[in-house]
């Protein structure tokens, strides 16, 4: 097997430079690459275009990169819950491209599956369709949407092996497997890194061929955005 292991987040993101486009996995704060985000803040790389479903909260997730003004543009489906984000957006410091969540996911998959474009009905007849090709198949209109072209994809998995194979846990899977397929270089941080052969080949969500660098993070905070519970009785 090919060994993809790197020492830590700093080494994993070492060659990300100003102005690049990076994808970051996660839905809300669930399944986000905490360690790589911290390393990006530490490295101070700027003018980033971030493709991620959400933009974090003020003091966690991509919100940390917004606070330090490292993000030039966000490509997301939903960006609420972030006051600093709102301030930068309204002041014109931050550019935002909002795209439907399914389109976001499918444009990642298209990149990973070598499909230059995909067709989706999402957004037909709305401002999302402006400037895009509309084509009718079987009586229904679809928009042509391009595969993403990202310099790096950064994902978070539950377990991984040094060959780059990844296994996700519960709904922290979300965008992570499709983004893992879509980066020119894909970086994975995992809660537990094991040797090849320890993961069941039938249970691997992302085959190692898609992953270029992998490391084990520690002390994951895994913050909860909306803590909802029911009473015991």
């Amino acid at each position, binding site marked *: 097997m090919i060994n993809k292991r790197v020492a830590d987040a700093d080494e994993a993101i070492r060659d990300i430079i100003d102005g690049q486009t990076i994808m970051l996995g996660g*839905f*809300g*704060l*669930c*399944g986000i690459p905490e360690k790589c985000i911290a390393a990006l803040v530490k490295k101070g790389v700027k003018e980033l275009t971030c493709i991620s*479903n959400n933009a974090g909260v003020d003091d966690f997730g991509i919100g940390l990169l917004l606070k330090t003004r490292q993000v030039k543009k966000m490509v*997301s*489906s*939903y*960006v*609420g819950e972030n006051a600093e984000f*709102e301030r930068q*957006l*309204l002041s014109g410091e931050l550019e935002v491209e*909002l795209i*439907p*969540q*399914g*389109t*976001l*996911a*499918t444009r*990642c*998959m298209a990149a990973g599956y070598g499909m230059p474009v995909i067709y*989706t*009905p*999402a*957004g*037909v*007849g*709305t*401002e*999302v369709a402006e400037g895009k090709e509309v084509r009718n198949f079987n009586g229904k209109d679809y928009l042509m949407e391009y595969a993403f072209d990202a310099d790096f994809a950064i994902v978070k998995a*539950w377990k991984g092996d040094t060959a780059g194979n990844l296994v*996700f*846990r*519960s*709904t*922290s*899977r*979300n*965008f*992570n*497997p*499709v983004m893992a397929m879509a980066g020119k270089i894909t970086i994975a941080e995992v809660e537990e890194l094991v040797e090849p052969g320890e993961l069941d080949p039938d249970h691997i*969500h992302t085959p190692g061929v898609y992953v270029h660098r992998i490391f084990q993070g520690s002390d994951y905070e*895994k*913050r*909860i*955005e*909306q*803590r*909802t*519970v*029911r*009473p*015991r009785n």
Partner: protein
Amino acid sequence: MLDKNGIARRIAKEIKDGYYVNLGIGIPTLVANYIPDGVNVVLQSENGLLGMGPFPFEGEEDPDMINAGKQTITTLPGSSIFDSAMSFGMIRSQKIDLTILGAMEVSENGDIANWKIPGKMVKGMGGAMDLVASAKNIIVAMQHINKAGESKLLPKCSLPLTGVNCIRKVVTELAVLDILPEGGFRLIERAPGVSVDFIKQSTSGKLFAEADVKEMDLN
């Protein structure tokens, strides 16, 4: 006139045994509380889950297990987890039998606006544009009139659209209405104590109503 729970209760009656259902944020989420015993439904959450269960007991919250509203939740036996591409794949291929979502405005030709108010901070459409463009069966849960008494069931939406010509049924605090394929709202049921005339006054889009419209049965 219905409160939010009343709207949810009425919508729950539209859910048939064996349905896969996607519930949006707000009133639609409340619908889960009123699904009758013996009606087996599977709830889809578009962040990648089929078989959503209730909120966890306090102390059992799992940060890796949330719904599309980012709330901590649980799963039921028989649930499955998948990535975002497959989640919207099953939405686009119409494997989800019923989608229930909220709206700011609906027009008489089935257009819906629910994601953007010009001049206000825009948070994004999330999965709403995918859902309305793909679902074969959508019920909108919404307020019939705003606080100023103005209708939100319009000839044409004034807000930026989420989807065009896709809504076929609306449940409000006043009524259940179908949207006809040829255009126009058709009054199907009125809320308890609400008159047909009041619904007519409250609907600015074209409305078709018989003189005698039955009152909703919420039980």
